[in-house]
């Protein structure tokens, strides 16, 4: 059966078809649509597949490991920076191994369309020494995910699927496979496997090391890694993942005179890499993300020139495309005719008209005017757009939760008042623990949790904090008198400024919660309610 699917959706459909019992994730572009697809799937509902959002990527990864412990097939999905949050469990899951199959999907964002950095998750896969699959198109995204659970169960190790923005968010026709039953619940055959006391961890680590040759053999024999012969040995091309697609756009299989090694399964297939290196005078490595493969095969010897992102044959940063790959091969693309006129202005994203964050920033800017610039530590979400004109209201945005802890550090340094702006969802993702630190040391910071009752930047997923923010803050030890809830509307501007100023004056951790539902979410909710009313 053929379906028109985003790369993300192809992964989700494959996981459902392969008998997955649960997906655990925190929303993050470009990975969000995987879990959303499972949530909207009737088939997933019929099969009782777990798909609620987790509080953050670490809790998601750990829950997926727990499901795999219990013998069922699980998946966890995140964006590249989310894997940093989940890295502790991810690295150790490679040591514990799994019982049921576990697939870790990480969507990288080269060119930073919606991210703070470009990092390349293949390094994490290599770091953890587990197999990594990097599909070159949507069909492979489906097929590889479908097969990844088996690969995971064969070696009892988590398997990573790495995609990048372009394949995650591009649609193509995908042929699906037969629906498999879910695994029955079962306990691991080795009862100590999941207890990483040092003595057991050492044993488990040897198991992982012992599997490395098998993983390499899997790559060498993989149907996804392919060696294409070529007569012209002046250049050999190693094309990884999506890079393979761009190469074939420029040089289709019949027209390419150079030997080509397509790499979509890691570890790097040693045999084929040696073959192409021995056969050719020079190598070009086309890979999306960091120059990982290029560095690996370059080694220390310069017997064979290796070119790619390191030597500037391809740009060191940003997303690849067919034009860039063509230029690296000395092929001209584009027309001389049409140039983009100078007057075409940038159109950056902005907060929606009527957004509650706007009222919060207007009040905050006024409340802080007397203290001068440089005191607002912010976080990741729609409200990050407060950094832009006309607000210029925030000074930092580093990683999920860093607003609270950076404000604390700055306050420790004497920068008082130090103010945090964080969203409700980000607060439960990674802000809570920082607030506990501030409470423990009675740090004079004001934490503004701009609560729009939604994870809005990624499309309005439910926030784990919904209806619980005051209770959480109280539970962490914030004095209830310094937990102030506001209604951020224009009419309340003066009140908001007053409350903010009062809390800046307080010598301890205070929390201000301006609460108004995301207007986009509210519009969707009203539409849905009207629809349901019409039905009944």
């Amino acid at each position, binding site marked *: 059966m*053929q379906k*028109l699917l*985003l790369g993300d959706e192809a992964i989700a459909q494959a996981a459902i078809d392969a008998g997955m019992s649960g997906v655990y994730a925190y929303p993050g*572009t*470009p990975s*969000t*649509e995987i879990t959303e697809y499972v949530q909207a799937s009737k088939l997933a509902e019929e099969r009782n597949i777990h798909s609620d959002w987790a509080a953050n990527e670490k809790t998601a990864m750990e829950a997926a490991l727990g499901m795999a412990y219990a013998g069922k097939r699980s998946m966890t999905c995140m964006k590249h920076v989310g894997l940093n949050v989940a890295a502790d469990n991810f690295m150790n899951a490679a040591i514990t191994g799994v019982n049921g199959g576990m697939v870790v999907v990480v969507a990288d964002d080269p060119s930073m*369309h*919606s991210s703070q950095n470009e990092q390349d998750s293949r390094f994490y896969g290599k770091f953890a020494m587990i197999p990594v699959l990097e599909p070159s*198109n949507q069909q492979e995204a489906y097929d590889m995910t479908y097969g990844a659970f088996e690969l995971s169960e064969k070696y009892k190790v988590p398997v990573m699927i790495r995609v990048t923005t*372009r*394949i995650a*968010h*591009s*649609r*193509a*026709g995908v042929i699906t496979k037969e629906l498999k039953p879910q695994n029955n619940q079962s306990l691991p055959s080795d009862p100590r496997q999941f207890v990483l006391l040092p003595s057991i961890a050492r044993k488990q680590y040897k198991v992982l090391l012992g599997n490395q040759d098998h993983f390499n053999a899997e790559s060498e024999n993989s149907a996804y890694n392919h060696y294409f012969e070529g007569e012209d040995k002046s250049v050999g091309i190693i094309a990884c993942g*999506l890079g393979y*697609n*761009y190469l*074939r*756009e*420029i040089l*289709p299989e019949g027209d390419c005179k150079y030997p080509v090694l397509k790499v979509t399964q890691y570890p790097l297939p040693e045999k084929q890499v040696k073959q192409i290196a021995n056969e050719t005078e020079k190598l070009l490595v086309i890979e999306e993300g960091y120059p990982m493969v290029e560095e690996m095969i370059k080694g220390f010897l310069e017997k064979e020139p290796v070119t790619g992102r390191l030597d500037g044959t391809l740009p060191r940063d940003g997303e690849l*495309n*067919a*034009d860039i790959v*063509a230029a690296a091969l000395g092929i001209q*693309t*584009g*027309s001389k*005719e*049409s*140039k*983009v*006129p100078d*007057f*075409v*202005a*940038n*159109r*950056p*994203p*902005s*907060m*929606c008209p009527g957004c509650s964050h706007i009222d919060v920033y207007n009040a905050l800017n006024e409340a802080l005017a007397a203290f001068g610039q440089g005191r607002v530590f912010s976080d990741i979400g*729609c409200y990050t*757009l407060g950094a832009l*004109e006309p607000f210029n209201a925030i000074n930092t945005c580093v990683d999920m939760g860093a607003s609270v802890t950076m404000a604390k550090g700055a306050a420790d340094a004497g920068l008082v008042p130090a103010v945090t702006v964080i969203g409700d969802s980000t607060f439960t993702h990674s802000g809570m623990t920082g607030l506990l630190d501030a409470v423990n040391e009675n740090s004079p910071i004001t934490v503004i949790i701009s609560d729009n009752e939604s994870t809005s*930047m*990624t499309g309005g997923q439910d926030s784990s904090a919904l209806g619980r923010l005051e209770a959480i803050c109280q539970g962490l030890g914030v004095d209830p008198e310094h937990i102030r809830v506001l209604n951020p509307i224009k009419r309340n501007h003066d009140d908001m400024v007053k409350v903010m100023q009062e809390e800046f004056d307080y010598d301890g951790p205070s929390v201000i919660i301006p609460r108004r539902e995301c207007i986009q979410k509210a519009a969707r909710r009203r539409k849905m309610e009207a629809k349901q009313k019409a039905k009944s």
Partner: protein
Amino acid sequence: MKTDIILAGVGGQGILSIAATLGAAALENDWYLKQAETHGMSQRGGAVVSHLRISDKPIYSDLIPKGSANVIISVEPMESLRYVDYLAEDGYLVTNTKPFVNIPNYPDQEKLMQHLKSLQNVVAIDADQIANDLKARRSSNIVMLGAAAPFLNMDLSVLESGLKQIFGSKGNEIVEMNMKALHAGYKFAMENK
């Protein structure tokens, strides 16, 4: 057949319904399709673009190489020019003339229209006005699709069946309204290309 289409607009303008219609049409004909979308942060009032490639042979790249798009369909005039270097020499630029001004430095509109008129193959259409005249205000996107239809290397009937698939579940009235919008756009383009 092979058609490379750039769909341009501003986040929230809903260019994806055009893409969905073309996608449904492609699938029905067993054509290959790739459609790259913009998601996430850039959607909020920022410039958004979708690369759409349809062919009877396998397609590799999800992105269209520069200088090879057959058509640019833009629901906003300045956005049509942001991607003009993707247009093939014999390609067509089909743009809505109704500006979406959400930035302080939006270019002078007269200058913008002059530049558009100076290009070789341009269809500039006030799709909002045409949709309003049809009492189908929300179908201005489909007016745009109709205006691009003569340059897509596919019969109008293919787009009609795509529309039926996409809007079929919303009832006959909605399908008919969009059919009218499609034909009005098509007629305008044939008279003004």
